[in-house]
């Protein structure tokens, strides 16, 4: 048992360090990806601009909606950070690996291919970290009134919620990824999945601005737990922690067996490209 554990730990270390070295080669691209996540800042501009108070003059006046501009700024910065660490792109890499026949080689190795993709994602998040810190620093420089440091407890909860958000998003996308076994262009499906993610996750507005029925409906879907809930925790807002984690747990309990089932069915279908 002990040797098995040690072997597993060594495997994790090797996988992560090799993927990290690989990702460091692409740091320019990863920085650009980080930069392309500007949507939360555009939305912050809209919600704080318009008829409301100007975001750049940091008076604590309320906008006509009763939105506290500083809370708004913190929320959208938190959204930006959460999004950076929960991005999932496995469907694109897997589709390419499948079409180019690299998957056959991975399947021969004594390690389920999914771990290769998980470690690539984690390594990429680690590569992102410095850029995200730099962008957050720039944000505080432009808008010093919004500066805050989350309490250790809030930070711990937020990081945990972010990890769960990443797991949830990865599981959903991986379930779609298995469609690659049946179709050559499965990544087009991700475009469809992205729509409810974009509009229900709280990326475009804090959830409390949604009409009440929509908000309640959204909270039953997995999407707010991918952005809004971790962001609220990070920004130090009140969140029903127990209920949120319970919903996430339920979704993972549904998605995990489903994804495993699809993966096994897909593998049976798999005959390598060109066979």
């Amino acid at each position, binding site marked *: 048992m002990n040797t098995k554990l040690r072997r597993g730990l060594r495997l994790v270390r090797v996988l992560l360090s090799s993927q990290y070295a690989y990702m460091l080669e692409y740091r320019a691209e990863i920085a650009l990806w980080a930069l392309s996540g500007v*949507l939360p800042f555009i939305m912050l501009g809209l919600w704080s601009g318009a008829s409301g108070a100007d975001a750049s003059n940091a008076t604590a006046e309320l906008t006509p909606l009763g939105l506290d501009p500083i809370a708004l700024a913190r929320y959208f910065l938190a959204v930006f950070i959460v999004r950076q660490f929960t991005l999932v792109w496995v469907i694109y890499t897997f589709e390419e690996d499948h079409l180019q026949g690299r998957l056959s080689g991975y399947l021969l190795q004594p390690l389920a291919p999914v771990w290769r993709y998980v470690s690539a994602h984690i390594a990429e998040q680690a590569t992102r970290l410095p850029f995200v810190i730099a962008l957050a620093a720039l944000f505080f420089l432009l808008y010093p009134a919004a500066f805050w440091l989350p309490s250790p407890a809030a930070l711990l909860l937020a990081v945990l919620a972010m990890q769960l958000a990443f797991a949830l998003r990865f599981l959903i996308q991986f379930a779609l990824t298995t469609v690659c076994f049946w179709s050559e262009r499965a990544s087009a499906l991700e475009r469809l999945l992205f729509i409810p993610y974009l509009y229900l996750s709280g990326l475009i507005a804090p959830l409390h601005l949604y009409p009440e029925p929509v908000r309640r409906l959204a909270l039953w879907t997995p999407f707010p737990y991918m952005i809004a809930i971790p962001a609220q925790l990070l920004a130090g807002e009140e969140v029903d922690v127990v209920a949120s984690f319970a919903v996430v747990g339920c979704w993972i309990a549904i998605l995990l067996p489903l994804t495993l089932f699809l993966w096994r069915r897909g593998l049976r279908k798999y005959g390598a490209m060109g066979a």
Partner: protein
Amino acid sequence: MLGDAMFGSKMFRRTVVRYWRSLRSFWGAALAAEMEYQINLLIELLATGGNLAGSLFVLSLFYRSGHGLGGWSWEAALVVLGMYTVLDGIASTLLQPNLSTIVGHVQNGSLDYVLLKPIDSQFWLSLRTFSPWGLPGIVLGLVLVVVGAILAGATPSLQDVLLTGLMLICGCLILYSLWFILAATSIWFVKVWNATEVLRSFLAAGRYPISAYPIGLRLFFTVVLPVAFLTTVPAEALLGRASFSWLAASGLVAILSLLASRWFWTFALRFYTSASS
């Protein structure tokens, strides 16, 4: 090369005919290839419709609460959103499929073959293929523009409509030039294939009227990244409230950025040394 051919109108006409014929065969082949994936049409229709519904939902969030968007009425804001949807459709139809291949040509060295072709290289790289999957977006966007304009009570004269079309063309040219210049930087930095994604993510700001942003962002989206000319100015032209200075500025920016893209491409090619050297 194109410039040389412009002397003499007979020569010019022959060149135009030749380029037009090339374009038709390019796009015919592209269409035939894309038709292999018919299920994609369904997915794209769903995606375009879903995205539009989502954008309308976001817009409704601003108006439901009385927050508004920079003094624009809900109906007028619909016109802006429609203009954005049209431009986004054009980007998916022409810009994205063509300009995203430039990096690949530089990386594999196949740009050599492009340069050897007896056709202008910028023309070939910019219009070589087209993807029909952006067309639903263009149609839906136009519908939204018309519906929004009618709801807003706009009574555009023929002149206004023509002006709107002209402003949209200017917007397209500005967008194309920005995109092309970014893609052309891959001659130096091969690994910038997603720089155009950064551009695209900033362009999302054009979904809403430019006056809805705080003053700093408004300046940024007019001077640094001219998003204002892409959607707000055409919408204002249709609603009959565009000022002459904005229209003139849009035309000027379009011409200047097109010239800049041309100049940048010839400049960049001087630094191109093929893949292995």
